[in-house]
């Protein structure tokens, strides 16, 4: 059952990733990324990371993707010209991707780490639950937690400043950007 679940989720994640790169309409790319993220959440569940999986669905597939959908709808479909600033870029880039994958696979499969070829260490029943993650986050990694909250605040303010309405702009206001950013921040906490 675990193997079937792994392969279904892996195919979903791979298909979503390829669709993100391959589809020409950015709106469909965003929707493909949602498929990818939900499949990844299933993989996290298989790895006993329940809290990460829940956060992935709520924060990414929920809040961040709403931001993407808003911006994709606001910007609309832009023509991507076919000319290449570097000759042969469209051919070289996938080759580089394949080379990267081969290199990483050699590193992973050739490693001498014994724990990789096993099913993993023995873990307690509370592994990855919100309780244990919260304990780690609020005791051992409290500084990191506070720094992350500070970073979110700065990013939210920065986004409002960057995308905010200027006096000489005649465009319609984008107040929904600020509120969506705030929602992402709340969800991330």
């Amino acid at each position, binding site marked *: 059952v675990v193997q079937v679940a792994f392969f279904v989720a892996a195919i979903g994640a791979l298909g979503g990733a390829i669709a993100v*790169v391959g589809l020409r309409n950015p709106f469909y790319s965003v929707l493909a990324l949602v498929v990818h993220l939900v499949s*990844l959440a299933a993989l996290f569940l298989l*790895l006993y990371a329940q809290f990460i999986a829940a956060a992935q669905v709520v924060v990414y597939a929920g809040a961040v993707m709403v931001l993407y959908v808003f911006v994709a709808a606001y910007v609309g479909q832009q023509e*991507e010209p076919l000319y290449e600033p570097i000759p042969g870029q469209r051919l070289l880039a996938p080759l580089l991707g394949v080379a990267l994958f081969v290199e990483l696979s050699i590193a992973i499969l050739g490693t001498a780490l014994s724990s990789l070829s096993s099913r*993993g260490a023995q873990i307690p029943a509370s*592994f990855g639950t919100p309780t244990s993650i919260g304990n780690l986050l609020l005791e051992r990694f409290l500084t990191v937690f506070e720094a992350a909250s500070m970073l979110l605040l700065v990013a939210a303010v920065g986004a409002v400043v960057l995308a905010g309405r200027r006096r000489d702009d005649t465009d319609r206001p984008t107040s929904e950007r600020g509120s969506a950013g705030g929602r992402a921040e709340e969800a991330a906490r």
Partner: protein
Amino acid sequence: MDVTWYLVLSALLFAIGAGGVLIRRSPLVILLCLELMLNAGNLALVAFSRAVGNEEGQVFALIVMVVAACEVVVGLGLIVAIFRRRLPLNVDDLRDLRG
């Protein structure tokens, strides 16, 4: 399932994301491909956390998600700002800062 499977899948996703960043010209899609790469890293972190039996990798993945959310918010703000100044949304045309 061996943890190696998850790592190979994560390497494949990372390579797809990297290829996408190199191929696509729209900044919005490039941000999406960056998300792919960050998520591949997250998958590797969680897989290692499972292999070692230590939850600190999951905390790391959580922080990566927070940083990714910040990056998205700022990047999308930049895209909206570019669009409102009626500049082309194409990373090849936006090369004024190149040395």
